[in-house]
């Protein structure tokens, strides 16, 4: 049993043993979980995938005379930002689109430029065109503004992502006879492709399946900079089917995250366009997991064969919210390039980048070894297995006869 404070002391004195989740698998195969738990102090993880529930808060500073963008309207590079806040606080979400984008009017839409692209450009240090209109008040008389902002002249700029780093995810197939364009990419008709989206054995929340060390306040790698877990993410659902050892076999926990956008790196935060679906953003995220005891050595050393996901039909079942799983497959099968779905061999394709996930885990490991990144004790736990949480669906009521 080690405490996080003890591990931090070892990091400070340069004696901590820090390994990536891939290395941990090999170490534990050789030493067993007991010895591995004594030898290894920290296991680093990583993931790099499209995460729609991401965005950035900005305080753009006050113009002369002042303008109250709050309650008005504003765009960044023609992409609408939310301004129902104080005078010059705005929020740009990853999936926001310019008003004149044709979207899916010409199907499948290209969604070439959206909020995620604005955030990537901002982080790269480029000028972003801010246009805002306001109603004007005695204290904020200006009614229109057109100018450029960038990361050097705004006040705060921080990512606040309501849902990142899904603990496991569906595998998408298509049982209809037409091609479908989804957030899981293009899924070919008649079960001709299966798309998956998880780093599997490198994925942060899969390595701490019971949220024993990851909690509110945990310091993380976010978009190439340092961030924190602020809350459980939206749709956080610890109560999904789990393996006997506690590893979730479907999309379960999620994280809400925060971090200073000005110190982030565009190679770990990239605007993305999903044909026929929309604009979004690739987010790179990594979490160090302290190996406080043998159980954490066990969890951090599970490999792709131990992580199972549900195969779901995105042609009919998913859009109609039918909770049907066609079968279960593990990430070793998914990464091999083909899976077997009830007797049919189906080629598999990833949506998230495993090589980037690996890069993040390596980078985080270097940060910790060099002493520039210390571990944190969570200030409060995430809702765990057996908590009251259940997923609510939206039951649509008749407006006339509620």
């Amino acid at each position, binding site marked *: 049993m080690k405490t996080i404070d003890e591990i931090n002391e070892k990091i400070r004195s340069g004696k901590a043993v820090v390994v990536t989740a891939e290395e941990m698998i090999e170490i534990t195969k050789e030493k067993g979980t007991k010895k591995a738990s004594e030898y290894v102090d920290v296991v680093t993880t990583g993931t790099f995938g499209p995460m729609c529930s991401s965005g950035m808060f900005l305080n753009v500073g006050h113009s002369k005379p002042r303008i109250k963008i709050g309650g008005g309207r504003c765009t960044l590079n023609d992409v609408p930002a939310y301004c129902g806040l104080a005078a010059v606080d705005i929020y740009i979400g990853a999936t926001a689109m310019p008003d004149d984008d044709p979207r899916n009017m010409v199907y499948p839409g290209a969604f070439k430029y959206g909020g995620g692209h604005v955030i990537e450009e901002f982080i790269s240090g480029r000028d972003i065109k801010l246009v805002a209109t306001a109603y004007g008040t005695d204290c904020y008389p200006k009614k229109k503004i057109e100018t450029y902002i960038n990361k050097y002249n705004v006040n705060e700029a921080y990512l606040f992502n309501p849902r990142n780093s899904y603990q496991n995810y569906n595998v998408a197939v298509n049982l209809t006879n037409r091609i479908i364009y989804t957030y899981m990419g*293009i899924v070919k008709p008649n079960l001709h492709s299966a798309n998956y989206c998880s780093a599997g054995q490198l994925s942060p929340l899969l390595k701490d399946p019971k949220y024993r060390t990851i909690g509110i306040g945990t310091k993380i790698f976010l978009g190439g900079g340092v961030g924190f877990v602020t809350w459980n993410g939206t749709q956080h659902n610890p109560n999904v089917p789990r393996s006997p050892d506690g590893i979730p076999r479907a999309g379960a926990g999620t994280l809400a995250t925060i971090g200073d956008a000005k110190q982030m790196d565009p190679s770990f935060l990239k605007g*993305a*366009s999903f044909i026929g679906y929309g604009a979004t953003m*690739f987010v790179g995220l990594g979490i160090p997991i302290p190996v406080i005891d043998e159980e954490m050595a066990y969890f951090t050393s599970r490999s792709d064969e131990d992580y199972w996901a549900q195969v779901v039909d995105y042609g009919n079942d998913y859009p109609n919210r039918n909770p049907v799983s066609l079968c279960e497959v593990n990430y070793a099968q998914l*990464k091999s390039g083909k899976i077997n779905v009830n007797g049919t061999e189906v080629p598999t394709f990833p949506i998230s980048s495993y*090589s980037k996930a690996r890069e993040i885990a390596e980078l985080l490991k270097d940060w910790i070894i060099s002493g520039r990144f210390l571990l944190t004790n969570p200030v409060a736990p995430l809702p765990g297995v057996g908590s009251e949480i259940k997923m609510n669906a939206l039951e649509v009521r008749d407006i006339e006869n509620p």
Partner: protein
Amino acid sequence: MKKRIIIRFKKNMIDKPIVYRLAKDFNLIFNILRANVLPKADSIMVVELEGSDEDYQRGIEYLVQTGCDIEPIEQDIKRDEAKCVHCGVCTSVCAPSALYLNRDTMKVEFDYERCVACELCVRVCPVKALNVYFDY
């Protein structure tokens, strides 16, 4: 040998049956993968040519003498290595598997020899790392 090339030719050449000549005079097996032939603008054709080394060389010489520009296919389909995040989305639409995942590095590799210039990857790449420079 078997090779995929891009043939560009001027608008004043569309009355010349160059593909017929390649087959008849130089014994080359041709497979037109893509063509955009316009009467009032420059034209382009993506062709796979197969034959003996000698026939292939003579065929190419003929094309050049006739006034065609010959380019290797990789000159016109490019991946921006700085932009690519190796997510793998392109591999799902690439029928000839020119774009494929290296299972060791889990990076997307691009085998230009197998590319048929269908451009599907260009449309689906989420970060627009794949580009085609055919100017029609």
